[in-house]
């Protein structure tokens, strides 16, 4: 009975997620504008890194995945406040299945959003092969799961208040995105920043994606080590999310 219910829930949520294409189109527009205008102009200003445009473009893909993961957490908080969560909690599925469904939704939405921009980057950089495409998608999926596990875990702690969650996510994105190699390599950072970035898993996700695509390989961290960190992040945050969801989560206060 469990699998069919999971499928039902997944279908139901996906229908809602894709009901409005505005967000997906916005993401593509965001990428197009940032890559073709902002990135292009910025790459002319950057003199220390050749091909900065593609470095920047792959960073945008990580940023898009980060946004989808944040959205998943936010959606979870919203569902608690809108009364949807308590309904889901009353349905005959386990909390673990519920968490898994959340992850799957995030992964599917993210893949839909990052696929076209990824193909654009691979084609324009001349690095497109089925292998680089598949490998890049795997890395982006791992990154999404890792960040999403973290965001859903946070949302479980903070879902009593939107403001707390917003502040945590805003602070986290400030730290995780800025102190990472999403937009610039370790070699260009002042030493303190470089140390902070090296302890940030997003750095490893971004560099692993670039290694999968084959961009600026000389300034990247060791791909094997990066892959280990990303996989560890994934497993760690998924367990964390599972743990929080099965032990902490309950419907919002009622009279």
């Amino acid at each position: 009975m469990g699998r069919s219910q999971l499928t039902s829930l997944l279908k139901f949520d996906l229908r809602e997620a894709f009901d409005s294409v505005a967000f997906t189109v916005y993401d593509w527009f965001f990428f197009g504008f940032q890559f073709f205008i902002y990135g292009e102009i910025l790459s002319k200003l950057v003199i220390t890194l050749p091909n900065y445009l593609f470095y920047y473009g792959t960073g945008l893909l990580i940023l898009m995945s980060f946004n989808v993961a944040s959205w998943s957490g936010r959606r979870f908080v919203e569902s608690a406040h809108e009364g949807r969560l308590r309904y889901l909690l009353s349905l005959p599925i386990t909390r673990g299945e519920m968490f898994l469904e959340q992850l799957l939704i995030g992964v599917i939405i993210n893949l839909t959003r990052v696929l076209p921009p990824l193909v654009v980057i691979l084609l324009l950089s001349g690095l497109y092969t089925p292998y680089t495409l598949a490998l890049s998608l795997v890395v982006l999926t791992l990154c999404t799961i890792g960040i999403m596990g973290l965001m859903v875990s946070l949302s479980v702690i903070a879902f009593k208040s939107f403001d707390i969650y917003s502040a945590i996510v805003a602070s986290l994105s400030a730290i995780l995105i800025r102190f990472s190699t999403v937009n610039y390599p370790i070699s260009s950072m002042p030493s303190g920043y470089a140390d902070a970035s090296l302890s940030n898993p997003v750095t490893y996700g971004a560099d692993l994606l670039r290694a999968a695509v084959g961009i600026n390989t000389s300034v990247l961290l060791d791909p094997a080590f990066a892959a280990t960190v990303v996989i560890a992040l994934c497993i760690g945050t998924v367990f964390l999310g599972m743990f929080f969801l099965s032990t902490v989560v309950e419907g919002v206060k009622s009279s």
Partner: protein
Amino acid sequence: MSTEQTVVTIRERQAMFRVLQVDLSYFFRTKWLIGTLVALNISDMLVAGLVYTNMMSINYFYFFVPGVIVSGMFAAALDVGRRVNLGLNEGVTQYYLSLPVSLNGLSFAHIVSAGLGGTIYGSILLGVAVIFVPKLASPITLAIVPLFFIVSMGLGGIAAILNLVSKGGDRYWVFAQGVQMILLGMSTVFYPISEIGAFFPSLVTNAISLNPLSQVAGTLRNVANSEPISLTGFGLVFATSIILFLVGMICYRYVFQKVWEVGKF
């Protein structure tokens, strides 16, 4: 004016003020949330600005800080406008229509609240930026605050247009992000006009330099570099904002009229 009319006017002003307060309180609802947002912008200045400076031929930090202030002001003004969007969805607008305030008064209050939101947030960022760019600690900087208000009022007008276009739905946020990206991207907020000129045809380059956001960022840079500020730029910003304000008034009026007539938008 009869006593009765005077009372009505005073009541309407009070109601408008309350609407404005509610709009603003949505954005500035908790000190620590604003603190977090400000910290986010500071981290932009101090991390992205400094790292990019290491990667570029120009001192990008001094160029970037005014850009962050302008983009923060922009985001704040549109976010206050989002309160109207939520109000349309949550039935708050219907409540406002039951208050002693005219449709014009309600529209005006919403646009002014966006204007004030942008001004307050932009001023906070400007105050913080003075620490990193000491030359901004100039009496001329005070003249920039009214400029923020004028631009933010125009942005309040844009928020009204977005509310009309998004039909009160979730798309407001998407449209707001899109407009923000286009208006900031097609300006000199984040990159110098020389690079833009090399990338776009001259017609587009001219339009970008006339963008009010370019003008505000340019004014801030002029102050930071102890250069004279352009009064023509001020005039341009003023004219554009007035037009956007008027268009915004028409849009909100239409939206509220619709809510009044059919109960929803």
